[in-house]
């Protein structure tokens, strides 16, 4: 990775179309479209779930059927027809994978194309990977090595079977079933996802990574991720997403819950590159995601996201700073091009004393896209000496795009200190000219300028991810200055 040069980037730029748009020819087991109690029961029985899990789902479905789809976000899209989606699709498999060698060769090929060859990863980087295709988790690496430390890293379904006490205790504890329309839908029909538990005092020695892939057409992806860092532990968790190029809009409605117990720290990084739709706004993923974490005393949760994909993005990774002295951070780069729309930001809920939060949001809009930052900083009445610093910058690449900032501040304790800075700038003709006068092509110049603009956020990402994210940013903005 260290040898990655500008030339490599130039080569990749030639292949600038959405490069993950392929479809893998893998037999899938897909259930009929539609959403009702029978479907939920079918999903649950396919997964051979215990009764308590089925009850959880049915309760969610009952609540969901009374809810209305929210419309407050600054995005416009045709509402999905929830009855025309297949809620479960899984690569067909005759038996459970016992080891990497059992994995379908076509599946392995898919992973390699996505740049996540597990053999490579296992050998070189020491990143443990969980791969979720369509609805199920197909492979988790490094299980044994992690197991020695008492770390549990497995698919959500495995966790339901093997660690029901943890799942029962924490699932829905941060994002309750009735939380919001999409989270409730997810609670009814979620099919798989990742589960991670770090025991007391353990510092996870490697990055844990989940790779989400929507492959089958006509399906939605509803995964659930639950990360629990027990007292005094540390984990860095990575999440990557891609999907094939299709003319239809596909729905992705995930729920991520993080629990950082006393003195624990969770770092959660996402590079979201779902298919964004074509130049005319046809197709693309609707990415409606609920991500939230809770911090107990002295704990810390740090969200970092690089969002370049999806036709419509609606997500607000948030922190509930419940314990005294806990810390929440949100670092975000959201890029929109062509007809993409993003309404993203965070919520920092200060409940404990001396709680601190930092929000750094960098929006980049190009083409005819709309990019909104929406953030809430809430200081409750017992949150003495709470601190927040927010910085929201917008960079405009064209004259037809839009950048919007919606900061909300609610403060009920007058010892709090809240700072908010916001800037909007247009990519400078002067900067481009300066680069070009030094011999740098326009493409590379845009890459340099944009990556420089996002540096504070990219610096938060683990090395391998940062390189990937830089490439993505440059590719997403190809030829977009105007």
């Amino acid at each position: 990775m260290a040898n990655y040069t500008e030339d490599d980037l130039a080569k990749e730029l030639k292949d600038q179309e959405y490069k993950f748009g392929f479809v893998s020819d893998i037999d899938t087991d897909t259930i009929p479209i539609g959403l009702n109690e029978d479907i939920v029961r079918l999903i649950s029985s396919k997964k051979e779930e215990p009764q308590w899990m089925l009850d959880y789902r049915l309760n969610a479905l009952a609540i969901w059927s009374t809810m209305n789809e929210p419309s407050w976000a600054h995005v416009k899209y045709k509402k999905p027809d929830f009855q025309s989606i297949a809620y479960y699709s899984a690569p067909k498999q005759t038996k459970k994978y016992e080891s990497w060698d059992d994995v379908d060769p076509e599946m392995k090929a898919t992973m390699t194309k996505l740049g996540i060859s597990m053999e490579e990863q296992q050998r070189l980087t020491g990143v443990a990977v969980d791969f979720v295709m369509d609805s199920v988790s197909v492979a988790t690496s490094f299980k044994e090595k992690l197991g020695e430390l008492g770390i549990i890293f497995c698919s959500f379904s495995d966790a339901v079977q093997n660690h029901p006490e943890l799942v029962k205790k924490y699932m829905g504890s941060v994002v309750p079933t009735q939380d919001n329309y999409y989270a409730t839908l997810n609670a009814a029909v979620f099919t798989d996802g990742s589960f991670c538990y770090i025991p007391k005092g353990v510092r996870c020695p490697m990055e844990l990574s989940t790779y989400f892939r929507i492959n089958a057409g006509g399906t939605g992806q509803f995964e659930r991720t639950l990360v629990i860092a027990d007292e005094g532990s540390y984990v860095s968790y990575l999440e990557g997403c891609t999907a094939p190029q299709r003319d239809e809009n596909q729905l992705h409605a995930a729920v991520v819950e993080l629990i950082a117990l006393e003195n624990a720290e969770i770092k959660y990084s996402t590079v979201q590159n779902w298919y964004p739709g074509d130049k005319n706004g046809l197709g693309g993923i609707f990415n409606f995601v609920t991500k939230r974490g809770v911090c107990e005393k002295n704990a810390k949760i740090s969200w970092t996201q690089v969002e370049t994909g999806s036709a419509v993005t609606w997500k607000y990774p948030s922190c509930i700073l419940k314990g005294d002295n806990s810390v929440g951070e949100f670092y975000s780069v959201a890029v929109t091009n062509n007809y993409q729309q993003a309404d993203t930001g965070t919520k920092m809920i200060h409940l404990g004393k001396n709680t601190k939060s930092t929000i750094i949001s960098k929006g980049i809009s190009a083409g005819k896209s709309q990019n909104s930052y929406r953030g809430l900083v809430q200081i409750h009445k017992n949150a003495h000496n709470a601190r927040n610093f927010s910085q929201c910058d917008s960079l405009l690449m064209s004259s037809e795009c839009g950048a919007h900032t919606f900061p909300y501040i609610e403060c009920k304790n007058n010892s709090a200190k809240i700072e908010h800075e916001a800037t909007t700038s247009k990519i400078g003709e002067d900067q481009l000219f300066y680069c070009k006068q030094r011999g740098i092509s326009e493409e590379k110049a845009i890459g340099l300028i944009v990556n420089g603009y996002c540096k504070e956020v990219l610096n938060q990402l683990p090395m391998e991810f940062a390189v990937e994210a830089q490439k993505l940013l440059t590719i997403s903005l190809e030829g977009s200055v105007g």
Partner: protein
Amino acid sequence: MITIKDLHASIEGKPILKGLNLTVKAGEIHAIMGPNGAGKSTLASVLAGREEYEITQGDVNFNGVDLLSLSVEERAREGLFLAFQYPVEIPGVSNINFLRTALNEIREHKGEKGISAKDFMSLVREKSALVELDSKLASRSVNEGFSGGEKKRNEIFQMAMLNPILSILDETDSGLDIDALRIVANGVNQLKTDQNATIIITHYQRLLDYIIPDFVHVLYDGKIVKSGGKDLALELEEKGYDWIKNNTLN
């Protein structure tokens, strides 16, 4: 090296250059002086290829190629360097990364391989010493938070790194104190060879105390109205630009 013939250029329909002629040979230093609004910076911008300017007439031959037909970056890769009057800040992009990208683009254009990290860093050390640029500045973001003097020294540092054949210094002396002026001039003098050439655009004579030009030209109302040796600069300083204006009117 460069031959400018009957160059006319305008911005938003307003003519600025009105038939400028100039020939610069390898190994020479030319100074272009003139009052505000004479077209000095326009000349620099037009040669570098700024798109706001429209060339209405004339041609420019740069080492055998038609300069005006090339894009901004192609001109740079052919060896034309502009030291900016107002160097631009690029937040988050380190000077080092910026220069390495530029250097490799130029090398690729010449059919050379990219420079290794080791060779690049020793080049950085060598060239930053030339303009007494703190090595910390080399790793900071391009011009961000630099003082006026540091920005100008950084321009000369970039010039040293990219090793152009024709350098145009656009009001490089403006805003420099006497020490910075000496350092900048010293850098330019050390970079001079019989293979390259420099055009210094300046309003004041004082830079020319440190960089001795072979030729001095006076630009007035879009044309070169007087040319001479280094003494012309002194004469101008003494008599003021009104002397030129009156002469031209007569």
